């Protein structure tokens, strides 16, 4: 029997890789993929807990996370296309109109 802690550690590792990718990549599409990575890490955690605690609510929460991830991908890529139309670049460091 695999202990629950192993799944939690795996989930944290994938989440940290997603955080790293989101904070340090130049390409905005890879940044969105890092967000998907983080959502998948959360799903691994939810489903493993649902299995070990013998309660299906975790899987239902993971189901909603997947639905929100699909909506987020559609909206995010629409924003990327709108950015492309105005700036013709996918690099986040070239978007500095708001002086951030």
């Amino acid at each position: 029997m695999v202990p629950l802690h192993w799944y939690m550690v795996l989930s944290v590792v994938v989440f940290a890789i997603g955080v790293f990718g989101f904070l340090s990549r130049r390409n905005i599409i890879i940044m969105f993929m890092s967000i998907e990575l983080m959502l998948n890490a959360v799903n691994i955690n939810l489903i493993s807990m649902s299995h070990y605690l013998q309660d299906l609510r975790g899987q239902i929460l993971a189901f909603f996370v997947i639905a929100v991830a699909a909506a987020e991908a559609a909206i995010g890529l629409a924003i990327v296309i709108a950015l492309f139309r105005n700036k013709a670049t996918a690099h986040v460091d070239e978007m500095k109109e708001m002086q951030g």
Partner: protein
Amino acid sequence: MIQQLFFAYFAVAITVFSLLVVTRKNPVHSVMWMLLLFFHIASLYLFLNAEFMAAIQIIVYAGGILVLFLFAVLLVNIKDEMKISKFIGAAPTGFTFAVGLLVVVIMSIRSFVAAPPGIYSIEVIKQQTHTKALGMLLYTEFLYPFEVASLILLVAIIGAIVLAKRRLKG
């Protein structure tokens, strides 16, 4: 023993593929590694007796979201992409932040205390079948959140069209 070996394979594969996703220079390669990553995560769900979630993972992520990503990647000029650095200047900060998060959360996992187990043991799910058990819960106890989720998807469809459509002349 065999279970630990299987888990070790999936854990190593998932970690390596996620690292490859965030470090490849060519975005198309990133998407392809992500496809492999999603299949391994789906196998991990099968390993956890969640076959419906494994199917959803492949249908929605590998079949829907990744195709969307591939369409968006085709906008990028790959030749320009290969010439410049893939990380922004603040990459060390991001790395430090991610490592700090990893260490802090792994330290806090040790103090995790599991709740008492619920009623959906493996025998109950085996008797009811997993999809039926999940559907019964989703359409009774979680009916209202389910409807809200459908509203979120509707908003996403309309929002994506409004954001991506060309401005009308005049």
